[in-house]
């Protein structure tokens, strides 16, 4: 065991995979010599060689197209899109090609690529370094979408994603790279040091895709979250004094529907929390699934705490960001009914 922050854990996952699987390679903008703008690929080129980890042109569509072709050949590429905000030029490649190749060719070709991308807000990144586009991937049949919330999961989920024979969009909450964040920007920054989920085995292990974690067991209300919002929600629950059950989804496709349904049937109340804007967000899908499956167990309307339906603002970051106060209000509202 070693104490790692999320960057180190992700770097370690790539390092282990590059060492054990010669068909894995890593490329993306600034990932080679420099080691990535967030240092996730630090020293991988030096250690594994130029062809195993290299720089790519500023061409998100080109990067993912090349990775699909490599996957069709038989490699297992891991590419980095520098910010999830910049993934849209590659959207056609993900939607029309990666997600459908296996289906349309009746299994003759497939695209076992992993697309890593720093995502989410809380870093004063403005509109182009803060967005949470997970719902648009979840909507695409044939893609898997994974969002870790801590170093242990980040490493285990990334290894699972790389070993998976389906295309995986792996969204890394960049606000969590260096420490957990409770959504209280006025408080001192925390590091991962001493956090139980920062204790990371140094060897190979996996966290399966499609299995949620119960971060905090409870009986009064279920809270569904992923990524940065797991920490924000936990902090809000503690402040509220409620006996809430917090579920960290870890991947939204595949979705661990059984864990969600069991919890909501137990508590009868549910609050969904995500950074992404509300309308058409993944919370809408979660809410629909819960009412389809748990309607007669519900004691209160399902609550959603989300970013507002505006572009991600700069000066108003903390007015936009769904912080603990907003979550507590939603929890209390769920309890009033």
């Amino acid at each position, binding site marked *: 065991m070693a104490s790692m922050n999320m960057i180190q854990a992700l770097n370690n996952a790539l390092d282990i995979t590059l060492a054990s699987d010669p*068909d894995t*390679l890593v490329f993306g903008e600034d990932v080679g010599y420099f080691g990535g703008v967030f240092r996730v690929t630090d020293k991988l080129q030096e250690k594994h060689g130029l*062809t195993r980890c290299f720089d*790519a*042109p500023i*061409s998100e*569509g*080109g990067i993912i*197209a*090349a*990775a*699909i*072709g*490599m*996957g*069709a*050949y*038989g*490699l297992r*590429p891991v590419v980095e899109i520098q910010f999830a905000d910049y993934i849209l*030029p590659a959207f*056609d*490649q993900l939607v*029309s*090609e990666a997600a*459908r*190749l*296996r*289906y*349309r*060719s*009746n*299994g*003759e*070709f*497939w695209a076992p690529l992993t697309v890593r991308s720093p995502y989410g807000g809380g870093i004063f990144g403005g509109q182009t370094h803060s967005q949470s586009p997970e719902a648009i991937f979840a909507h695409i*049949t*044939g893609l*898997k979408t994974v969002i870790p919330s801590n170093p242990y999961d980040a490493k285990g989920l990334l290894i699972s994603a790389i070993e*998976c*024979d*389906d295309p995986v969009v792996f969204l890394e909450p960049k606000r969590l790279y260096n420490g957990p964040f409770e959504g209280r920007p006025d408080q001192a920054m925390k590091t991962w040091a001493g956090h139980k989920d920062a204790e990371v085995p140094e060897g190979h292990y996996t966290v399966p895709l*499609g299995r949620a974690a119960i971060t905090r067991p409870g009986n009064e209300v279920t809270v569904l979250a992923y990524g940065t919002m797991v920490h924000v929600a936990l902090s809000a629950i503690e402040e509220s004094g409620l006996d809430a059950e917090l579920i960290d989804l870890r991947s939204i*496709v*595949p*979705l661990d*529907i059984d864990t969600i349904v069991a919890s909501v049937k137990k508590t009868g109340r549910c609050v969904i929390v995500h950074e992404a804007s509300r309308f058409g967000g993944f919370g809408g899908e979660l809410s629909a699934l819960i009412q389809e499956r748990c309607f007669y167990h519900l004691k209160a309307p399902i609550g959603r705490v989300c970013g507002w339906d505006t572009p991600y603002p700069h000066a108003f970051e903390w007015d936009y960001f769904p912080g603990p106060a907003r979550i507590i209000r939603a929890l209390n509202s769920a309890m009033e009914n």
Partner: protein
Amino acid sequence: MPDDKRLQLHIPKPQARPGEPVNFDGLIVPEAGSVRRPEPLGCEADMRDMPFSLVRVLDENDCAVGPWAPDISTDVLRKGLRAMLLTRLFDDKLFRLQRQGKTSFYMKSTGEEAIGAAQSLMLGQGDMCFPTYRVLGWLMARDYPLINLVHQIFSNEKDPLKGRQLPVLYSAREYGFYSLSGNLGSRFGHAVGWAMASAYKNDDKIALGYVGEGTTAEGDFHEALTFAGVYRAPAILCVTNNQWAISTFAGIANPRDTTFAAKAIGYGIPGLRVDGNDFLAVCAATQWAAERAHANLGSTLIEFFTYRAAGHSTSDDPTKYRPIDEPVHWPLGDPILRLKAHLTVIGEWDEARHDALTAELTEAINAAVREGEAVGTLGKSKPSVAEMFEGVFKEPDWRVIEQRQELGKELGL
């Protein structure tokens, strides 16, 4: 503002639209054999004149002339003729069946058969073709079973793609033929990535990618060429310039005084411009580019200058947007007739053999169609509906399983 200071927006127009006289006057066709053949392993910077010429081998007497005349056995030439003729006859038959309501959609390769057929015969079994929908000649040259094509076009119970794809969007991995899609250009970068993977693994396989001239305007084309140039991907990247993108003439994708092959110059890879209706020129250019790729010198961009003699698909009528007689005035002729004439001139073919071959291929096509019809045409037969839910992921997730059961109940299965 004075009138002479006012700007004018330029919208290009083709030489002729329906009712106007066909006009190919601006088209410069150099004599066969007149264009130089650079050393294949030479420096790209010394080849930048090539995109502005037109490599041609067959002259007006149907003889192979000049430095590009390839050393190809007559057996291979006859195989090429057979593949082209089979493509032409198959297209004509299946197009008619679409008109009879036996399938929803069809696309012909008419006039462009030399390209897929010649390249298929020039490249190796392990190489991978990333086709457009007008490269049926590749499969025909490799003896892909006609019955598989027919079943796919009918989307019937024996469709190798299980009813999931529009007709003619084939996939045939064992024949080096990558999965087609109706999106244009989105596989060009896959060809480059596949070629990069071959180089990464120190393999000896190369990739062949295609787009049409209209698709060179897509970002995918430029992204793929950037990667091809930067990483020296062992790929042959082809622009099939058939003059028409549905109703849009090539001048909407490229300004008049340049060529599609010339786009290679900016990416630092050789660009060749080749008579795509000249089977021997297609062979020669492909061999040249393959030699370069195998020598680790990376990609070549080849513009095949050709003509789409039929409509875009069964869904358009070309007489509505171009002169009805434009195809017969195409100055570079018909690829099948030209190769047939060449084989005849060198004493390796004659009318009797051609008639016999036509009869044999027609019967093979008719037999395949009869077999396909016996299984069922579109709507008369289809794969098990459970196939709709297979292959979304390697292993189905709960949504797919639940929805399959939901539909099963709905259908009383």
